[in-house]
């Protein structure tokens, strides 16, 4: 993998990284992708073709509930905002976007 490809991934993942780290990652990825690439070989073999991508395996299914408010207004506001780096009047403060 080339350095510029890793740079693109870092941009997409919103992570600031040094060039030297990205060079290391480019090298690591070649060996990791070669290793995990085994799945492409085995997926062509018998027995893996018919395994359908259904949602019904075991007991996994979508769990629904009515879209109603279940807590009192402001019940958790203070607790949650106490973790925020920057707040104002009960709101999270962010930089201007436009």
């Amino acid at each position, binding site marked *: 993998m080339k350095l510029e490809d890793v740079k693109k991934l870092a941009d997409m*993942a*919103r992570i600031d990284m040094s060039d030297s780290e990205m060079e290391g990652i480019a090298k690591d990825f070649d060996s990791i992708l070669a290793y995990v690439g085994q799945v492409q070989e085995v997926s062509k073999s018998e027995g893996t073709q018919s395994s359908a991508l259904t949602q019904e395996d075991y007991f996994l299914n979508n769990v629904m509930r009515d879209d109603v408010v279940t807590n009192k207004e402001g019940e958790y506001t203070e607790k949650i905002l106490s973790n925020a780096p920057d707040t104002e009047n009960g709101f999270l403060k962010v930089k201007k976007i436009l």
Partner: protein
Amino acid sequence: MKINLKDLTIEETHNHFKNGDFTVRELVDAYLEVIKEKNPDINAYLEVYSDLDIQISKAEEIFKNGTDTLMTGIPISIKDNMLFDGHVASASSKILGGYKATYDAGVIKQLKKQGTIFLGRTNMDEFAMGSSTETSAYGNTKNPLDTARVPGGSSGGAVSSVAMDGAMAALGSDTGGSIRQPAAFTGLVGLKPTYGAVSRFGIISMASSLDQVGPLGKTVRDVEIIFNAINAYDRLDSTSIPLEKRKISNPSKPKRIGVPKEFLSGDGIEKEVLQNFEESCQKLKNEGYELVDVSLPLIKYSLAVYYILMPAEVSSNLARYDGIRYGLHEEGDKLLDIYTKSRGKGFGKEVRRRILLGTYILSHGYYDAYYNTAVRVRHAIKNELANIFLNVDAIITPTSPCLPFKFNEKIEDPIAMYMSDLFTVPANIADIPAISIPSGKNANGLPFSLHIMAPYLREDILFAIGKDFEK
């Protein structure tokens, strides 16, 4: 009475409480003394909680009411990725340094009700990504059995807290072996329950389709007791299995155990480990079990499947850390700079690597070749195991292909580190329960471990074989 922490089990402790031999407070004090003496060197705990007095009072009250359970007053440690209302939970990452939980995780709620004592939170690989606890942002944890070596990971602090007698048991989490491999490295018992048996609500997510919380302890029975206490439906976890679907009709005692010979002939498995495994097989035969060869041609691909699905889910789950709502915040000129700088500084090297790997795997043009293919092979592996379980009650392997290694031995070689999960990953891929049980020590005192997998929801088989093996 003088409390001997070394061999104390949960049931014995419960009886001592009932007989008035010692109180919850006296037991907690005994653990705190050990922690004070050993933790500065071992670094198992990142924090010992300051509200132990309140916790102890609650446990005493429960005993007075007569509503006590086996878990009442039992001092355990919890992994740093479990939310405990009002307490810091950082996943051993700088990006969550100082983050205070705003509610209780499902497992914490279950145990709090019963008056279990949470002594403190334990060190781990950052966001549970690692097999040695060396990726923690808060320093290494040493293996109490040999302090030049790693305790395994990612629940390295959890196992060390128990192995140094700084807790009776621990809660860990297991995405690819993070409970069972560190248990193996420190001579403990570790259980990864069936996916959906134990609530994941309030556990800081790594790879949601694979994560599962489980107990670590000194004996199979201790692990069974904790599992029974947290094995519950939680409507706040959409993958939690409803109780009526958990019932097993006619659970029979296990008799036949499968040994996947060809899986044990791969590269990178230490000779000593294989020799010890042969001895474990013999021991099980002596206990009256029938051992049969089983063929599992796909199981060896579990690790490759894992290193596709896990980073993909990681890159998605960890997108939430933005430096805005909580956690580390780095200033920047634009909003985007705040994101990239906070994430660049807040995440450690291994986490950054896995997020990028997951981003690649999920990106246009590669999604089908990697992600979808891995999901298909995962299904095939699940089916392969389900079919084998029609003929055998359990499958055994060693827990780890290697003995506990030294610090820095594998940290620069991701593939070598990833290979630590070779035998443990299939259970996560197939959603089935698995346990690791100590199987002796080598000449240098390093522990060996036996790994047992059972069919979906059949933890009872693991406990039955485990107790026979432990004898």
